[in-house]
């Protein structure tokens, strides 16, 4: 069950330009957190900025009760977050939302992360490896220094490939090129993706073309984070041929089956 707790900063580490990895002591959250879920963080004690900020769960150390977040500074809230130091406390609500559905053990899965969208996929990859799934993580970024994970020296318990827009690391081009190569070649049983809308849209069309199921984690502007205000909706195809409907990213998502999403 979700809780709202004052979580202590265990470690704040800069891992790239405007990129941070934050570790929080939050055993009440790590206990039940699953990949794809997020936390809703109060970045300040005063009213500016007013709202909390949603950040995906990037990993957990259940033994130590530590929650890991990977985030990019893009505005006021994330800048305040980056200023938090060891020992400070933050209001953290979580775990929130519906996570990824896990594939059958042994299945081959591909994870596609665009930019900071890779954050929840690392948590997912770690869990899948433990379940004896064959995991390949594809990471896309504008250039080598902006890679959130996958830089030289990065070790992961799964296969990893990188694509950059400027060719400074790995494949020169969009990360979806790497996905297409896999789908056209050895194939995959399941694809999980998180990233910018354009990347997700392209991924959706590849999944349709190669007839592979997928799940995407979405981002939308939030109010309450718990399903009460209907601020955070995305457009989905209705269940069983019903008309289009708006569904709440904070509770019905952030993870949705790829084929239910409507891209307009």
């Amino acid at each position: 069950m979700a809780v709202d707790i004052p979580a202590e900063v265990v470690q704040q580490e800069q891992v790239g330009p405007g990129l941070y990895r934050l570790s929080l002591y939050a055993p009440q959250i790590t206990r039940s957190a699953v990949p794809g879920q997020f936390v809703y963080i109060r970045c300040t004690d005063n009213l500016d900025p007013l709202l909390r900020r949603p950040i995906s769960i990037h990993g957990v150390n259940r033994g130590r009760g530590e929650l890991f977040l990977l985030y990019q500074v893009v505005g006021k809230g994330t800048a305040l977050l980056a200023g938090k130091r060891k020992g400070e406390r933050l209001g953290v609500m979580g775990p929130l939302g519906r996570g990824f559905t896990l594939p059958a053990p042994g299945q081959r899965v591909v994870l596609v992360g665009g930019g900071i969208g890779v954050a929840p996929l690392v948590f997912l990859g770690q869990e899948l490896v433990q379940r004896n799934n064959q995991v390949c993580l594809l990471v896309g970024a504008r250039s080598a220094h902006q890679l959130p994970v996958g830089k030289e020296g990065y070790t992961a318990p799964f296969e990893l490939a990188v694509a950059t827009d400027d060719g400074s690391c790995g494949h020169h081009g969009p990360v979806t090129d790497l996905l297409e190569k896999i789908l056209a070649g050895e194939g995959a049983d399941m694809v999980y993706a998180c990233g910018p809308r354009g990347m997700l849209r392209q991924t959706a069309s590849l999944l349709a073309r190669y007839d592979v199921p997928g799940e995407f984690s979405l981002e939308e502007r939030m109010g309450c984070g718990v399903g009460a205000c209907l601020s955070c909706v995305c457009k989905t195809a209705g269940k069983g041929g019903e008309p289009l409907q708006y569904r709440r990213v904070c509770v019905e998502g952030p993870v949705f089956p790829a084929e239910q999403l409507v891209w307009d």
Partner: protein
Amino acid sequence: MIKPNLAVDVAGIRMKNPVTTASGTFGFGSEYAPFVDLNRLGAIVVKGTTLLPRRGNPPPRIVETPAGILNAIGLQNPGVDHFIEVALPYLRQFDLPVIVNIAGDTVEDYAALAARLDGVPGVAGLEVNISCPNVKKGGLAFGADPDSAAAVVRAVKGATRLPVVVKLSPNVTSIVRLAEAVVEAGADALSMINTLLGMAIDIRRRRPALANVMGGLSGPAIRPVAVRAVWQVYQALKVPIVGMGGIVTAEDALEFIMAGATAVAVGTANFINPRATTDIIEGIERFLVEEGVSDIQELIGAAHMS
């Protein structure tokens, strides 16, 4: 000192303390149950309900502004039948008056909703939303014109025996004129304020930040406007008022009570602090003890005494 009395009565809706939730910010209650003991609330006002399910507006539906938010939800809700069959049975397990916020496109819609909810076990009262700025028909179209507002209220009163609270908009020249018209038409209580019509531009995209273009401003930014509205209406009319608009702390809530509100509703603050309602109840009680006030009633409209 003995525990001060916090209980209030809003047109027959008996509340164990003056704190309720603002419609649309607290869902149907279950969403916040992991964080708040719903039994502790004075009452709950649920999300705006319509006769048929509503899809609502396209996203983005919310944008943060200085000390506030703009929203344009467009009354997405599963419809009154779903509310009665699914949400209400859940709420009945709590010791908690349930006030149903209703909205329609036409006077007939409001009357049909009132009739549908009349006599349904677990419903303590109706809040008539004639002040939503985010829908094309209904909403503000009724709330900005005294005659139309009165017509809605008469139709609702004619269709139900439940206490009827009418929710007023600040987007009018004189909120007192609207208040007088709806009280004349039979409103048992008034709630105020709904959101202020506003807008923001995303300068990178050179487009309005909300897909709906305009939205309703709520949060601390609107509190002084709301306190003023309560003050003016209290001065003009003898009718219970549920005050709201930017309440975050017990001190904020006490401003509304001293301006003339019998009860207060907490909205946007729930998003920041899911326990805002119960924190405010505790804060009000502490204030009464500190000030040696034995009954909250003594403070209602207290700022008006010279």
